[in-house]
C-alpha cells in the first residue's frame, strides 16, 4: 500500500468504541535482553491498530505473548474486561485471538481446505474438509479472500497463501487478528486488496493488529498506531493526528536521513549481457522465458516483481547455480553460460542470496569460517591441503570492523548473530574481493532501518567504484531509491525496462502483469 495508489484513509473509529484487548505493563526478558519493558497498549473493537517499530523493537515478542507462545514475566492481558492467562495458542484461539505469521505455517503438499481443517475443532471424523470447504467459500465471499479450497498450497502464490492463513484464523473464530508484517511479500495491488479485506473485517467489528515497519502503510490503513522502540512503547496516537516524519522520529529516536548519495551521471561499459535466456524451475518448467538484459558497470539494475515470477531462477542462472537451458550469458566478454558457481565467483561475481540463513551462511560454523566460505580454497586461507585459520581470523576481524558486524568474537557461531549482522557478514564476504558484478537478491528483506541504510550505501559505494549491480527486490522503495534502471519481471519475462524515477503506480501495474 502506498500513498500514490491508496484509497483515501479508512474512516477512523469513534474513540468511544469499547476496548477489546488491553495489555498492561507486560514485561518479558530473555537472557541478556529485555524484549518488552512494561508495555501497555489497548485495541478497540472495529479498529485497525498498527504496531510500528524497527526490527528488535519487541513487536513480535509482544504478539507472541498475546498468542500464547511466550509467557510474560510480569503484567496482565485483559480481553473484554476480564484478565486472562494465555498459556498456548490454543488458549489464544479460545479467547478469539488469531495470528497470521510472517512465515506461513502451512503444509505445502496439502490443500487449502486440509490446512484449514487441521486442528479445527468440531469437524466431522470422516471427510472433514467437505464442510470446511463450504465455510471457506462463505468466508471468502464475505471478506473478499478468494482462494480455491482444493488447490495445494505449493501451487499458490504468496499472497494466496497469506489469504489461507487469514481464513485459518477467521474460521477459528478470531475476533482479534494479528498480522505480522503482512505486506512484506505483496505487490502494491495485493496490499491494496489486503487492506480492503481488513476494512471489511473492521466493519464487522473485528480488531486488527497490524505489525509493520513501513510508515506509508500505517498512514494508509491504521486508525491508531502504537510505536515501540527497544522494548518500550513510545506512544499510541491516532493516525489522523500524526505524520510520517513524526512517526519516523518516534520509531528510530532520531531523524532518519531518507536521501542517499546522489546518483552518478552516465554508466560504464556493459558488464553482464544476457541474451534470450531460458531457465527451468525445479519442476522442469520454464521459469525464465527469454530474458535479455545488459547490466553496465557503474549501474544498478533493479528487477522488481512479485516473488515467484522467475527472479530466483534468473539469479541462480546468473551465478552458475542453475543450468542455462537456452540463450547466452556473457560476462566481461566471456561466454559464461555453462560456468560453475565457483568459476563465476573467481571471475568476480558476488552473490547476496535471497535466503541468507538457508544458503548464505553455515549457521553452526564460526563467523571466521563463514567469512572465508567463498575463498577458503585460496591463499592465504589455505596453503596446499591445510587451512590457515590464523589468517582467516585476521581477515574476519578486519571485516567485523570494516562492516561493523556485531559479534562477541570471530569464534562465535554465525547462527547466534542477529539477522542484520548475518546479512552484513554475507555482504562483507561477498564484497571483500571487489567484485565486478554484484547480484543481490532481496538484500534488506526483514532488516531494520539503519542496517538497510547501511547496506544501501554499500551497494551504492561499490557501484560508484565501477561494479555492475543487479538488484532483485520486492521492495519498491528499495528499487526506487537505488536503481538506475528498473526492470519488471512477470511470468518469467522481463516485461519492461524503465528509467529511474518511474512512479510506483506504473511499476505496480507491471508487477501485476499489465503490460504497457
Amino acid at each position, binding site marked *: 500500500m502506498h500513498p500514490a495508489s491508496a484509497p483515501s484513509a479508512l474512516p477512523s473509529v469513534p474513540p468511544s468504541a469499547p476496548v477489546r484487548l488491553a495489555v498492561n505493563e507486560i514485561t518479558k526478558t530473555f537472557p541478556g535482553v529485555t524484549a518488552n519493558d512494561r508495555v501497555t497498549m489497548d485495541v478497540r473493537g472495529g479498529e485497525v491498530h498498527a504496531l510500528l517499530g524497527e526490527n528488535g523493537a519487541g513487536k513480535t515478542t509482544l504478539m507472541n505473548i498475546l498468542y500464547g507462545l511466550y509467557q510474560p514475566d510480569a503484567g496482565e492481558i485483559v480481553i473484554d474486561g476480564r484478565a486472562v492467562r494465555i498459556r498456548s495458542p490454543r488458549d489464544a484461539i479460545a479467547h478469539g485471538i488469531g495470528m497470521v505469521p510472517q512465515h506461513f505455517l502451512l503444509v505445502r503438499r496439502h490443500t487449502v481446505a486440509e490446512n484449514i481443517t487441521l486442528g479445527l475443532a468440531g469437524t466431522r471424523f470422516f471427510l472433514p474438509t467437505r464442510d470446511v470447504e463450504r465455510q471457506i467459500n462463505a468466508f471468502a465471499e464475505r471478506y473478499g479472500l478468494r482462494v480455491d479450497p482444493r488447490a495445494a498450497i505449493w501451487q499458490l502464490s504468496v499472497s494466496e497463501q497469506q489469504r489461507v492463513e487469514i481464513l485459518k484464523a477467521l474460521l477459528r473464530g478470531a475476533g482479534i487478528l494479528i498480522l505480522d508484517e503482512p505486506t512484506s511479500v505483496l505487490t502494491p495491488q495485493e496490499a491494496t486488496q489486503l487492506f480492503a479485506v481488513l476494512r471489511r473485517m473492521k466493519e464487522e467489528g473485528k480488531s486488527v493488529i497490524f505489525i509493520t515497519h513501513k510508515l506509508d502503510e500505517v498512514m494508509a490503513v491504521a486508525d491508531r498506531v502504537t510505536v515501540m522502540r527497544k522494548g518500550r512503547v513510545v506512544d499510541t496516537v491516532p493516525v489522523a493526528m500524526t505524520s510520517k516524519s513524526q512517526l519516523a522520529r518516534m520509531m528510530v529516536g532520531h531523524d532518519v536521513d531518507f536521501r542517499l548519495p546522489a546518483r552518478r551521471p552516465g554508466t560504464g561499459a556493459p558488464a553482464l549481457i544476457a541474451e534470450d535466456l531460458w531457465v527451468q524451475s525445479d519442476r522442469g518448467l520454464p521459469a525464465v522465458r527469454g530474458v535479455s538484459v545488459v547490466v553496465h558497470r557503474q549501474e544498478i539494475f533493479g528487477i522488481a516483481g512479485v516473488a515467484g515470477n522467475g527472479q530466483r531462477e534468473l539469479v541462480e542462472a546468473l551465478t552458475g547455480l542453475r543450468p542455462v537451458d537456452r540463450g547466452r550469458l556473457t560476462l566481461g566478454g566471456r561466454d559464461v553460460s555453462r560456468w560453475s558457481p565457483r568459476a563465476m*565467483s573467481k571471475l568476480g561475481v558476488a552473490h547476496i542470496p535471497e535466503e541468507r540463513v538457508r544458503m548464505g551462511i553455515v*549457521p553452526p560454523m564460526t563467523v571466521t569460517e563463514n567469512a572465508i566460505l567463498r575463498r577458503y*580454497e585460496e591463499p592465504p586461507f589455505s596453503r596446499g591441503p591445510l587451512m590457515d585459520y590464523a589468517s582467516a581470523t585476521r581477515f574476519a576481524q578486519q571485516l567485523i570492523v570494516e562492516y561493523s558486524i556485531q559479534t562477541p568474537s570471530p569464534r562465535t557461531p554465525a547462527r547466534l548473530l*542477529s539477522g542484520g549482522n548475518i546479512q552484513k557478514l554475507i555482504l562483507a564476504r561477498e564484497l571483500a574481493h571487489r567484485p565486478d558484478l554484484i547480484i543481490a537478491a532481496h538484500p534488506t528483506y526483514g532488516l531494520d532501518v539503519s542496517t538497510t541504510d547501511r547496506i544501501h550505501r554499500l551497494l551504492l559505494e561499490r557501484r560508484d567504484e565501477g561494479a555492475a549491480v543487479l538488484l532483485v527486490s520486492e521492495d519498491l522503495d528499495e528499487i526506487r531509491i537505488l536503481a538506475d534502471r528498473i526492470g519488471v519481471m512477470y511470468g518469467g519475462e522481463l516485461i519492461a525496462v524503465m528509467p529511474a524515477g518511474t512512479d510506483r503506480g506504473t511499476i505496480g501495474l507491471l508487477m501485476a502483469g499489465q503490460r504497457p
Partner: protein
Amino acid sequence: MKQVGPFRLDTGEPSGAWTLVVSAAAILAAFVAAGGIFWAYGLNPIHAYAVIVHDTLLAPGAFPEIFRPTIPLLLAGVGLVLAFRAQFYNIGAEGQLLAGTVAATGVALFTPIRGPATLPAMFAAGFVAGALWGLLPSVLKLRLNVNEVITTLMMNYIALYFVSWLVTGPWKGPSVRGFAYTDQFPASAWLPLIPGTRIHWPTLVLGVVLAAAFAVLLARTRLGFAIRVQGENPEAARYVGIDALRTTLLVMLLSGGAAGLAGVGEVAGVHHKLLDPNQVSLGYGYTAIIVAWLARGKPLATLITATLFGLIYSSGDVMQVSLQMPFRVTSVFNGLILFFLIGSERLLAYRIRWAPAGAPASAPASAVAPSPPSGEDP
C-alpha cells in the same frame, strides 16, 4: 524459562560439560533400566553389576580384554563420525567391515605375498574393500538421490551372505573337515599381540592414529572444511560451489576404509581365519553407530566411547560365563543406551540454574549477541 522451586530452566547452547553430564546420566539410566533385565532373569541387579565390575575390571587379566572389542569399534566408529559429519548416514559399517575381512583373507590365503609384506598388504586390501563397499551407496545417493540409510543397511546383508557363502563354499578350508571356515592363515598373516594379553596392538595403534588423523582432517584441512560445510548446510555448499559428489565420495572412502581395517584386525588378530560372519563381527558395525553418535562428531571422543562399549562387550562375556546369560544380552544393553541417549538429546537444549525466588534474573555472563527466540532480531 521456567521456575521450578529455587531452580530456573534456561534454554541455550549446550556446553561441553553439560553434554557430558547429560550423556553420563543417560548411560546411567540405561544401566538402571538394564537392572530390570537382571531382575527378570532372577538375578539381584546389584550383585550382577558387582560380578561384572569384578570380572571385567578387577580380576587378573580381565582388563585388557576390554580392548579386544574396543579395537573394531574404534576403527569403525571413527569412520562413522566422519560420515555423520558430512550428514551421510552410513549404517553400513558392518558390511564394510566384512568386506575388509574378505579382502584380508584373500590376501592371506590366496596370494603369494608372504613375509613382512603380508600384513600391510592385508590392511591395504581391507581398506580398499571397505571403501569400495561404501562407495556404491554414496554414488547412488548423489546421482539418483537414493536414501543412504537403506542402501548401506542392505549392503550389510549382501556382505553377510557373501561371507557365509565363501566359508561354506569356495573358500571352505580343505583341512578343516567340514567346518564352515577357511584354512588357518599362515603365521606371517597373524598380527602380533601385546605380551600377556590378546590385544592385537597394530590395529589398536591404527585406530588411535586414525582418530587423531580424522580430527586433524576436520579441524585443519581444506577437505575437512568442505566436509563440514557440506554436512552443516548442503545448500551453502552448493552456493559456494563445493562438489558434493567429490566430498561425499572421499568421506565414504575413508569411512568405509576405516571399517574395512577393523575387519582386517578381526581376522588377522583374533580368528586367523575367515568364519561365519556372525562370529567374525559381533555386531561391531552396528554398535559403532552408537559409538559415533555418542562421540558427537568428534573423532577423538571415539577413543572414550569405543572403550566404553568395549567394556560392555566384555561384560557380555562375563554375563555369559559367570551369570549364565546369553551373550546377545549385550545387544539389549546397547539398545537401551542408544535409546536413553537419543532421549536425552532434547535435554541438551536446557540448562538448570540456581535462581532462588526473589533474586533478580541476571543475564548470563556470556557475551553472545542476545537473540530472543522470536522472529525479530535485536
